[in-house]
């Protein structure tokens, strides 16, 4: 993250703030709209939000773990 140029950094901050605002709006929206899913579990409050967040973190954590087993130098096959 060290060689971020100032413009990119500004855009990153803007995007992060925007995401937080949209996320909060969506969470609040649940109070006003009855949300239901295809399976019963999905009807739990904020289920897609929590599941989406957790799944993403899980994927990245497992991905990092996989690097220990599956990562080789670039010219491995050459």
């Amino acid at each position, binding site marked *: 993250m060290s060689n971020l140029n100032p413009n990119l950094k500004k855009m990153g901050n803007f995007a992060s703030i925007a995401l937080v605002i949209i996320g909060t709006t969506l969470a609040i929206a649940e109070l006003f709209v009855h*949300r239901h899913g295809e*399976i019963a579990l999905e009807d739990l409050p904020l289920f897609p939000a929590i599941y989406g967040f957790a799944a993403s973190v*899980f994927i990245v954590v497992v991905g990092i773990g996989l690097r220990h087993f599956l990562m080789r130098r670039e010219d491995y096959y050459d």
Partner: protein
Amino acid sequence: MTDITPGILMIIAAVFVPYLPHHLRQIFMLGAIALSAFSLSAGAGIHWSVSVLGQELILHHADNLTLPFGIIFHIAAGLNVIYGWHEKKSMEHTAGLAYAGAAIAAVHAGDLITLFIWWETTAITSVFLILASGTERANKAAMRYLLVQVASGVMLLAGASLYWREVGTLAFGAMELGSLGTWLIFLAFGIKAAFPLLNGWLQDAYPEATILGTVILSAFTTKLAIYAFARGFAGTEYLIWIGAAMTAFPVFFAVIENDLRRVLAYSLNNQLGFMIVAIGIGTELAINGAVAHAFAHIIYKALLFMSIGSVMYRVGTAKATELGGLYKSMPLTMIFCIIGAMSISAFPLFSGFTAKAVIMKAVGYEGLVFVYLVLLAASAGVLHHSGIKIPYFTFFGHDSGLRPKEAPFNMLAAMAIASVLCIAIGVMPTQFYQILPYSLYYQPYDASHIIGQFQLVIFAMLAFTFLMRFGFYPPEIVSTVLNSDWLYRRLIPRIGSPVLAAANKLSIMGNNIIVSSAKKIMSGTLYVYKHPITGPVAPGPAAIALLALLMSVLLLVNLLS
């Protein structure tokens, strides 16, 4: 005129492509594709069959399932011609046109032998898209690709002949797994559909093709397999589990892969998983979902490969470690890339949303809770590696210092058309659903569904931001990530070479023995030849003893019998 199988005209036209001057050639190819597409209007039924050796080969069969694949394959072929307009060499154009034609003809095959012929034609034509890269690395990948593809074809042929002996027909219709024949056909399809552990060729070969080659490859081979499964094995329960595994595993690999075209190859594999799950369910709703997803997927996947290809065309690399900060230099490419990314991530108003919603509904309707949760997690994963990683590491992220020109006009035009299609499918679901095999009255846009989907994608994006800000996100590393092609590139050679060496030694030993005994026989014969027995010879005592022994044996045998 419409009786001619769609696609065949494209294959014939491909023969003339190398002899035409540059711009005329591109126009000629678009014309050939349009003419070929005209055959799609033939309507349902068998339009062309020939009798060969007492077998009825159905060259042109059309119904509700072939039509959507026929349409999208023609659209993809047309987009490829526009995207590759700048390319003056004819190799990729010839191969690409013939390859697309073969895939289209395969979709319209009414029997397994015709299917086999086009199945192999797609393999043989498409390998030139990889060879056209011209590097040693690409040549090797191309040969591995060809071996796997031809193996799939051989299995299809073997399965077809067994199936014919068993059932007495070669007609390509719904099959029931059980006999060796049907299993061989199933596996042949499975190789091309990049099943788990059979998927190595996909991530190995696609990123080694040329820029245009990868875009062309992304559309046809795997979706032909999806079509074949939908026709032959709809409702086969194994497919639900295989498909669920396909959606999940590639996601982890995509997160740590550095080559962005390879990341897209993993995400292609993951998308195929959604379609395979739907085919495994096999209800009308689910098959509609699989076809809708294949249709939408071909466009947004091509769009993503096109945008990364344009970047590669300008800066010469698609490695995340070497890219970044291109948003200012290639703003239009960035916008198109993000449209592709939002489509594949299933943002409402984009094509992935209207297509995937049908599959999710079908899975939910069957009460497959575990599979549903896997697909939902995989959707978050898609967003992660294709939706965020691809545009982020290319156009934002760290500044690579590269300041290339915007992509050439023809590339932008192809991406613009693909983008329009992505959005059109996203905003006009009712019209889109009309091309599906079965009638579907479904409205994906209700407040509940929109909010749920937005929550999923926005919070997955928040997770990315969170991991990035706190330094948990794995940095891009120049590396090779092992995939199932390791099995035949490393494991089998490692185990195989000692066995082969031993077998070789044995055969040399055996050879030596044969050679030395042959030499002895030869020299003995020569000796006798050179020293002929001449004149009357009195038998010695040994000869008399041998004669006596033979006589006694004969007597004994006579007595006993």
